[in-house]
């Protein structure tokens, strides 16, 4: 059953990819949607079994590589962490699959697009259910491939091709670190299977490891190398340059891959390796610093961009930064929490932006939008919901997850924790600002588009809006529902933490009640799954979604339980008692809890002042702070620096080396020699022709040389 969840998307990919023509567009769309939705239904039903009842398991498929001590199997690992990821991936992927039917309705290659989406879903599922590092690497590169194919989907566009190449190659730089990390893991642990690594992580805490001539703390080296992979895949500062360019791909791709799932693979990787990172404090510190700075820098850039998708892309990068600094202070649960809520509201924002772009006849520049909110009210409302969740306005999903991250960072008490906290607060202000800048520029003010475009503006069809509703539901409620399970307090009774504005006390819920509600939810979900089989793709999607919600309900109820946090994650996340910042986050001072809300509110207000009420103010700021503005607008000049440092120099060295090959290596070696021998041969073979003669000639020369060598040097042999 659980194997089907993983391989159904692969099946869809193969059918739509290989027989797309025979199936027709409709057929491919139906099959791929069906496969992914089936995967979603199964994943969500597994949520009960694995996460709530704790039936974790590993399904061995077949052995992959066996060399000496190095044994790797194809195996699927279903534990709390992987099943939660599976639910997110399949639910968002289902939404995107269905949405794409509408979004790509004018495209010529529909079945190819659907096939790629399914391929991506399969690779991502392989990544999260991997039970060893190499299979994780398989999924890791697989999603990279799918991302490459989808960014470059419109392969007649040069910009799309360039962006897809950039994405693949920059990711490869990260993968380079990940690959070295895998090798280092094998050398240190003698295995790359998660079970073995995690079981022995504590024993290896003092082991040192030879690397580049020095002797270093083994787990730190491994942690940093693995993190390098995460930096690439999750677009953290330094290797982030591919993400904004990746917006060349069709918008559903941006929603699925570059917001909700693939870019969070790095977060997943670090969370997965929490048993190891817990013993590598320096690696964690690095993760935290990278995350904090990324959250800040990305937000500064996001404030200045005009392409609607790029604004959201930088916002994604910034939010990923939050997740990473949460990981860095050992708040793995908080990071995963934000990962889930972010998947919903960011996919919603992207698909909403897609809906706008679709309505505006493929216009992406916000300077050419404005004044359209009355024409597409549903999209407008949905974008509001997404932005509210993103900005962390109370009771929306992002509010819970972002606040717990900031509180954890503060609660960590270390200098880098505090640094991340303040960077995060600054980013929270900017997040609110650019979110409303986006809304105001896109929907309000005077229409700036051409009349022809304006006349054409229409609300998206139902096939695009229904997935948006599903995501909006997640953006509205996932925070509240998942809070207790993901980051709930472990303490009973008196020490119950009261989250700002969240007055629900966990102790009040009795165990019996929880079990009752849990089983209710479970049976409901089975009904849904059952019904789904008889329904068409659409309703199935909704069912899948209900299922998910039911799961959330059940889970929220069950984890009203006092020991919610630790039990919920069981062994899939490991936090040392002294590092338990999520626990400490529940007892931070009130101002720490309130500050993110306040700065968020101020950010929104500021956006209204600058872009709605006082139109000259934006210009005023850009002129007064011109150098700063240019720095942000030009994305801190990363692309320019990298171009000069790496891209150009690679080509220059390539040219130099190829000239060297011709002149130096050949000139001294074969060309010189062959000239010589040809001259000799030409003299000798004037009467003859044909290549065999030359061969014979050279053989004779060789034989003479051999004989003379023996005669002169080894005379004793004769």
């Amino acid at each position, binding site marked *: 059953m659980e194997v089907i969840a993983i391989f159904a998307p692969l099946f869809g990919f193969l059918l739509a990819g290989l027989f797309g023509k025979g199936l027709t567009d409709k057929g491919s769309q139906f099959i791929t949607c069906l496969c992914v939705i089936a995967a979603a239904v199964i994943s969500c039903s597994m949520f009960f079994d694995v996460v709530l009842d704790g039936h974790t398991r590993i399904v061995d498929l077949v*052995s*992959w*590589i*066996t*060399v*000496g*001590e*190095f044994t790797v199997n*194809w195996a699927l690992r279903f534990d709390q962490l992987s099943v939660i990821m599976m639910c997110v991936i399949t639910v968002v992927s289902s939404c995107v699959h269905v949405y794409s039917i509408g979004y790509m309705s004018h495209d010529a290659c529909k079945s190819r697009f659907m096939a790629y989406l399914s391929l991506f879903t399969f690779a991502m599922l392989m990544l999260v259910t991997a039970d060893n590092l*190499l299979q994780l690497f*398989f999924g890791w*590169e*697989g999603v990279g*491939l799918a991302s490459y194919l989808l960014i*470059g989907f419109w*392969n*007649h566009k*040069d910009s799309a*091709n360039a962006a897809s*190449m950039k994405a693949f*190659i920059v990711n*490869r*730089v990260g993968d*380079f670190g990940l*690959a*070295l990390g895998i*090798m280092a893991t*094998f*050398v240190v*642990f003698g295995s790359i299977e998660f079970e073995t690594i995690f079981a022995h992580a504590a024993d*290896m805490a*003092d*082991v040192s490891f*030879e690397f*580049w*001539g020095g*002797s270093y703390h083994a787990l730190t080296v491994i942690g940093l190398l693995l993190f390098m992979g995460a930096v690439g895949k999750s677009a953290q500062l330094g290797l982030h340059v591919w993400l904004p360019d990746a917006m060349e791909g069709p918008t559903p791709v941006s929603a699925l891959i570059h917001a909700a799932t693939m870019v969070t693979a790095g977060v997943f990787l670090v969370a997965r390796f929490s048993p190891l990172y817990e013993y590598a404090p320096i690696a964690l510190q690095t993760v935290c610093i990278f995350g904090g700075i990324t959250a800040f820098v990305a937000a500064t850039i996001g404030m200045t961009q005009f392409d609607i998708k790029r604004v959201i892309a930088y916002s994604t990068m910034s939010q990923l930064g939050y997740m990473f600094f949460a990981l860095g202070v050992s708040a793995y649960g908080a990071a995963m929490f934000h990962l889930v809520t972010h998947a919903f509201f960011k996919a919603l924002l992207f698909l909403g932006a897609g809906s706008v772009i679709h309505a505006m006849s493929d216009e992406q520049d916000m300077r050419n939008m404005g004044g359209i909110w009355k024409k597409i009210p549903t999209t407008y409302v949905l974008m509001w919901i997404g932005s509210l969740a993103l900005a962390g306005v109370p009771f929306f999903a992002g509010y819970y997850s972002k606040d717990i991250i900031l509180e954890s960072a503060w609660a960590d008490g270390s200098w880098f924790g505090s640094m991340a906290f303040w960077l995060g607060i600054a980013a929270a202000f900017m997040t609110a600002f650019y979110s409303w800048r986006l809304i105001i520029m896109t929907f309000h003010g005077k229409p700036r588009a051409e009349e022809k475009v304006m006349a054409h503006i229409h609300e998206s069809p139902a096939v695009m809006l229904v997935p948006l509703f599903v995501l909006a539901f997640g953006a509205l409620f996932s925070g509240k529902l998942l809070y207790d399970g993901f980051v709930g307090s472990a303490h009973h009774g008196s020490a119950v933490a009261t989250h700002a504005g969240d007055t629900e006390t966990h102790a009040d819920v009795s165990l019996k009640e929880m079990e009752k509600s849990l089983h209710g939810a479970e049976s409901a979900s089975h009904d849904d799954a059952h019904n789904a089989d008889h329904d068409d793709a659409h309703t199935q999607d909704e069912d899948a979604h209900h299922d998910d919600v039911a799961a959330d309900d059940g889970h929220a109820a069950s984890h009203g339980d006092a020991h919610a946090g630790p039990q919920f994650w069981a062994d899939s996340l490991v936090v040392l008692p002294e590092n338990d910042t999520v626990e400490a986050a529940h007892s931070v001072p009130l101002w720490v809890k309130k500050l993110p809300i306040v700065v968020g509110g101020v950010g929104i207000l500021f956006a209204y002042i600058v872009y709605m009420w006082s139109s000259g103010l934006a210009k005023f700021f850009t002129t007064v702070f011109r150098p700063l503005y240019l720095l942000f607008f030009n994305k801190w000049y990363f692309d320019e620096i990298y171009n000069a440092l790496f891209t150009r120099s*690679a*080509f220059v060295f*390539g*040219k130099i*080396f*190829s000239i060297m*090959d011709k002149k130096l*290596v050949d000139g001294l*070696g*074969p060309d010189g*020699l*062959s000239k010589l*021998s040809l001259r000799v041969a030409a003299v000798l073979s004037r009467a003859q022709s044909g*290549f*065999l003669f*030359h*061969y014979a000639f050279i053989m004779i020369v*060789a034989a003479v*040389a*051999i004989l003379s*060598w*023996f005669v002169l040097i080894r005379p004793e*042999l004769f």
Partner: protein
Amino acid sequence: MTEIPILSLITFLPLVGAFFILLIRGDEETAARNAKYTALYTSLFTFGLSVYMFCKFNGDLASFQFVEKYEWFSDLNIAYRMGVDGISVFFVMLSTLLMPICILAGWKSIKTRVKEYLAAFLVLETFMIGTFCALDIFLFYVFFEAVLIPMFLIIGIWGGPRRVYSAFKFFLYTLLGSVLMLLAMFSLYFTVGSSDITQLMNLHLPLSAQIWLWLAFFASFAVKMPMWPVHTWLPDAHVEAPTAGSVILAGVLLKMGGYGFLRFSLPLLPEASAYFSDLVFWLSIVAIVYTSLVALVQTDMKKMIAYSSVAHMGFVTLGIFTANVYGIQGAIFQMISHGIISGALFLIIGVVYDRLHTREIAQYGGIVKNMPKYAVVFMLFMLGSVGLPGTSGFVGEFLSLLGIFKVNTVIATFATSGVILGATYMLLLYRNVVFGKVTNKEAAKMKDLNGREIACFAPLIVLVLLLGILPNLVLDKTEATVTRLVERYNTSIELSQVAGEQNDIAPASGYRNADMLAGEPHRPANLDANASMKHDTMKQEKKDDAHVVSDVAGKGGES
């Protein structure tokens, strides 16, 4: 082994086919057609026989199988000895697999001297298989050298405009290396009094003698491989060779170098191999980085793939000289995988060359529209070449890197960076040829793959994916042989060091001192704690000890 002499049968069947082809008479067209079918059936039948042999091959045995021996120069103790072990059996398979594909590939594009062309290929097949099966050094030498003749003719007669230059370059390079190898073989023969490879393996030469012999063998195999800086013949040879010639050149001929290292350098001259391993590592690193960068700026498709071959072979030499089971298994796998992938890539170039008669990348672009099937096939092999997990390219590359990582992390880091560069030039090639805007109207009119071409690619596609997902199909069969090779290697290294031979010659690299130091009491605790190390190869442990010890010494000692 009283059964049929299956190896000789596989080896010489193509020669018989070639003989019959040359006998074919009739008007040109009929003769050409008959010759083609004769060649195809011969090569297919040979492949069938080799599959039969492969099925009978017992992967649990480390020794040579299907051994044949006939007296040749009995007075001199030189005999016709044939046999295959876990390493060579795959190279035989690779040769027999690629040959029918090559014959199909030239089906339409070769129009002159068709009979001779096909005969040359079949003769080439005989020599290639013979090289991999020979168990006598002189027999090996004869086959090894003989391969040059048909290849020389294939490039020189059916090649491109600069074919004569390229053919000579190819010939001179490889022959010069081989001459030195012949000297080494004579020397071995006179020392042992036998030319039987299995007997030579029991030989223990002093390091001073090994060094010269090793260099002589190295000269030949490094050129064949080709290693930097003796690689420049390869791009020229590839560019001028006809498609099928390139496929065989990249697919099989380059592997002879790696095979030679595994058959001679490591087992016969273990101490010299250890002595020179650092040199090989650095040459390989240069090959990987340097040729990848060169590949990046090429404007000729074939040249680009040719340079990429040099880079990929860099992983092979790295893997082989790690002398641990991971590196060697990886190297063997990488050679097999590269044989399939680069062969396929040359076929891919051949497909568009047949249609447009140019290899200039700039002449193509946007052909995904009119050749979607071609684009898919190209994509698959491009991904194999960049080593995407799930393709065979990944397994070999990763295992080689794993092997080298255990030995030297600096080298491993540089080598792994080749993975980034490899992706860069392959994606660039793909983008410029398949994607983008249509710049050449002729290119936009090209027809998609036809049935014959799909038949060429189909087996290669299956293999790339199959070996990527289930590489144990190969690794299981090579394991016994490789394990024994590594064990023997370690034993002789150990023996030589026990005998204190390191006094004979000044140690070149740090680890030759390792054994003296390793015996000292202060073994750092961290290595003992590391249980995973204990099953590692002996040599590796010593190297580690040497590093640790020298580190400790550097830090002023440890009590």
